[in-house]
């Protein structure tokens, strides 16, 4: 067969040069960034930095497990979960209406032809507000609120509420727009209101994805409340900060283990919820 079909040497994959170019271009673009971020991994293995690092990690063993300490950790864990949950609940209150305002699928004027100017401007404005809310890190919000409401959990809750409100609002909007809009648009074509179409079309269509994402964000909020504790927003993070300052590695490792357990638990919960809604 090969004798019948001529195979000239010039017959090469034409996409090859493009591929080589983009790999080289990527490397050239990445190099200044590595220099700028002072990426020097071999420093990790230098003996004068390795010894103190190993000493610090060695201090983590064994974790502190006496009853008094565990009781305190349990109390603070509960507080951490409470901060994350209350913060996320407030974020939901903020995100749900903003997401609904920003979703293009729920536009009555956009159903036949182009969206009217007013609604289109409103959607851009809401998206801008969501960008502002989530571009300020929760740590900064926490520092602001610690000055307003004083040290304690309230600052943490408010900080999580604002930043997570921005994140949830954006992603809820994206989830609602990426799903199949046929059911929703059919309802609006037949004269249903926007909120009616949301509750009878858009929400059931996307409920599982929304739930799954919310549980993931709850997990992030638990982690985030630990960081917020370092600036005095209460919870397990504040205790971890105190232990860290006392160079008490065994206490830190106990609390880290609690975090691993919390994250694993939210993971199981999310899987169970998705199965129930799937």
């Amino acid at each position, binding site marked *: 067969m090969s004798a019948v079909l001529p195979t000239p040497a010039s017959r090469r994959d034409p996409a090859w040069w493009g591929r080589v170019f983009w790999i080289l271009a990527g490397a050239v673009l990445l190099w200044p960034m590595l220099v700028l971020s002072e990426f020097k991994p071999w420093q990790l293995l230098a003996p004068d930095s390795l010894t103190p690092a190993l000493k610090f990690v060695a201090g983590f063993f064994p974790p502190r497990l006496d009853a008094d300490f565990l009781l305190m950790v349990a109390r603070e864990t509960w507080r951490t979960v409470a901060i994350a949950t209350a913060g996320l609940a407030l974020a939901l209150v903020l995100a749900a209406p903003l997401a609904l305002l920003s979703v293009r699928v729920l536009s*009555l*004027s956009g*159903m*036949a*032809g182009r969206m009217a100017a007013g609604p289109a401007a409103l959607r851009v404005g809401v998206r801008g507000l969501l960008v502002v809310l989530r571009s300020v890190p929760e740590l900064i919000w926490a520092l602001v609120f610690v000055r307003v409401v004083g040290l304690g959990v309230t600052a943490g809750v408010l900080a999580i509420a604002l930043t997570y409100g921005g*994140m949830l609002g954006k*992603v809820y909007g*994206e989830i609602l727009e990426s799903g*199949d809009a*046929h*059911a929703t*648009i*059919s*309802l*609006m*074509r*037949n*004269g*249903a*209101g926007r*909120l*009616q*179409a949301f*509750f*009878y*079309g858009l929400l*059931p*269509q996307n*409920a*599982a*994805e929304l739930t*799954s*994402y919310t549980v*993931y964000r709850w997990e992030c909020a638990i982690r985030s409340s630990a960081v917020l504790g370092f600036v005095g927003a209460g919870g397990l993070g504040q205790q971890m900060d105190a232990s860290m300052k006392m160079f008490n590695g065994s206490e830190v490792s106990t609390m880290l283990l609690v975090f691993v357990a919390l994250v694993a638990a939210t993971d199981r919960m*999310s899987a169970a919820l*998705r199965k129930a*809604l*799937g």
Partner: protein
Amino acid sequence: MELKLKRVNARHPAAHSAVSPALKAFDLSVATGEHIAVIGPSGAGKTTLLHVLACALRPSMGSVEIDGRDPWQLPRRELRRLRGQLFLAPQVPPLPPRQRVVTAVLAGRLPRISLAHSLRSLFYPTGIAQADAALARFDVADKLFARVDRLSGGERQRVGLARALVAQSRLLLVDEPLSALDPSRAAQAVQSLVEGARDSGATLLATLHDVPMALRNFPRIIGLREGALMFDLPAAEVSPARLEALYAQKLDELQGTGAFDEPPSAKPAPVVMQCR
């Protein structure tokens, strides 16, 4: 409802402007309470016609009048009220897969009830008897509390038609209601639709691939080909010669072999965890 189209040109909003419109200089007038079947080969513009009549698609040229008023000149609130009085049932039933049948059927009456009432009905359905009666007309009453994604394609289509009856609208526009139904179910479904429309005095327009079914159940037949009206006749005057001209080069569709297609199954995609 009284409908009047004058020299209407319309194309699908996603279609390229160079493509010839799906409806070309189309004239039609329909009196209140008429039952009309729209037939013609696929791509003839049947769905576009229904969308224009349902105020879902604004014609690029020509005029639409519904009960003597141009819907596209109405204030937004009035247009929504008008849309609430008509019902467009698309070919693929627009049912969210995780919704229960009772909720999906009762969604047909949303324009008639308040937001508070519709939320209460999500908590506990307020029209179970109504939904049950509508489903019974299409022989799917046993699925009242089943989830939509547990239904077969044919059952889904019948649930979509039951929603059309619950809507109690004055104009019923039904797109290809039989594509997923076997012959005996199809006959029953058409009869239930026609009876439902007659009981409420509604005007009914249905597109059908099954020509004999259309001739048996509808007094007035409209033949559409390439966006133009081929004939508009009482069913008794639609001769085989006219049908052959209508379906020329597409005779397999006239025999009904090309029409029996299952709509794509709306199986929900597995939910992925996104890290955004």
